[in-house]
């Protein structure tokens, strides 16, 4: 006769455990860390480039780039002035905490002030896998359409910061900003939001100022978050 054993263990527990270890590594080295998520083409790598260009004179930046194949994104981040590590997931649709932990072995965290983990372009899977980063950031872009919070509630619920990119295209594409923001407000009341354009540079100053502030806070007090 079978014997029933109570388990009650989260399916994500293994990943979450490694994510906590990653967080401890960041905190110990006083590195401020971001998990950058978005659909393909929303501007993840462009925002990484602009962030590196805007902050490289004051801070050391590390970038971990997750892609199914190629090192194109890491090459762009490195060209902009960051120390960049490429992870090729070989088909996997998201990064997980173990992949990030392995990539961290190739970085000297003590020499880095800001680490950006650029996730695989996808609005579904990355939402389920914590990486251990301090802030989860989602980039939405104007051409994707204003219905995305309603269609991908999971990722909008789990983020700390929302970046709306390509605002220079607002005059040319149908995008109801109030409809979009209402969806965000329903799912994630009070989420910090930046409106910017990596092409025209509008709004980038606010974004980089926020990051600088977060880096400074992290340096001052590693227990701050």
């Amino acid at each position, binding site marked *: 006769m*079978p014997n*029933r*054993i109570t*388990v*009650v263990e*989260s399916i994500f*527990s293994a990943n979450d455990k490694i994510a906590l270890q990653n967080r401890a590594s960041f905190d110990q080295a006083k590195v401020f860390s971001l998990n950058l998520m978005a659909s393909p083409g929303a501007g993840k790598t462009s925002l990484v480039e602009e962030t590196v260009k805007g902050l490289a004179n004051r801070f050391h930046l590390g970038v971990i780039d997750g892609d199914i194949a190629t090192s194109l994104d890491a090459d762009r981040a490195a060209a902009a002035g960051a120390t960049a590590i490429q992870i090729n997931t070989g088909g996997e649709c998201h990064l997980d905490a173990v992949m990030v932990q392995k990539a961290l072995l190739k970085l000297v965290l003590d020499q880095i002030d800001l680490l950006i983990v650029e996730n695989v372009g996808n609005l579904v899977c990355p939402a*389920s896998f914590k990486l251990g980063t301090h802030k989860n950031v989602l980039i939405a872009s104007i051409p994707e359409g204003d219905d995305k919070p309603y269609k991908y509630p999971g990722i909008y619920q789990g983020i700390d910061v929302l970046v709306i990119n390509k605002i220079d295209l607002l005059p040319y594409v149908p995008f109801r900003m109030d409809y979009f923001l209402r969806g965000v*407000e*329903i799912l994630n009341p009070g989420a910090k939001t930046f409106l910017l354009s990596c092409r025209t540079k509008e709004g980038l100053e606010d974004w980089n100022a926020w990051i600088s502030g977060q880096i400074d806070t992290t340096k001052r007090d590693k227990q701050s978050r």
Partner: protein
Amino acid sequence: MHELPITESILEISLRHARQANAKRVVGLYLVIGQLATVIDDSVQFYWDIIAKDTIAEKALLHFKRIPTTLQCLECQLQYNPVEDTFDCPDCNSTRFKIIKGNEFFLEAIDVE
């Protein structure tokens, strides 16, 4: 979409608990999945049949318990199960709510021999 790593995790957890109990075989698994957790039963079952092969959990029966979404309205405090396509409160039409149930995803128990 990511059911393969999820299924690997389910296998790892069940084998570990079976080993701790000195079990010979795992014959059943009881998974609890909230309606908001984007996990597809058929896909987990598909991967399970492949990756559990040649382990002591091969041919174990997967039981899925679905937890319906329960929300609490932040205006009138009503707890409700949202109907398809809208999360709005059925009483006061508020769109502000917190999730009470629906994000669960865990292995509740296993049957072993």
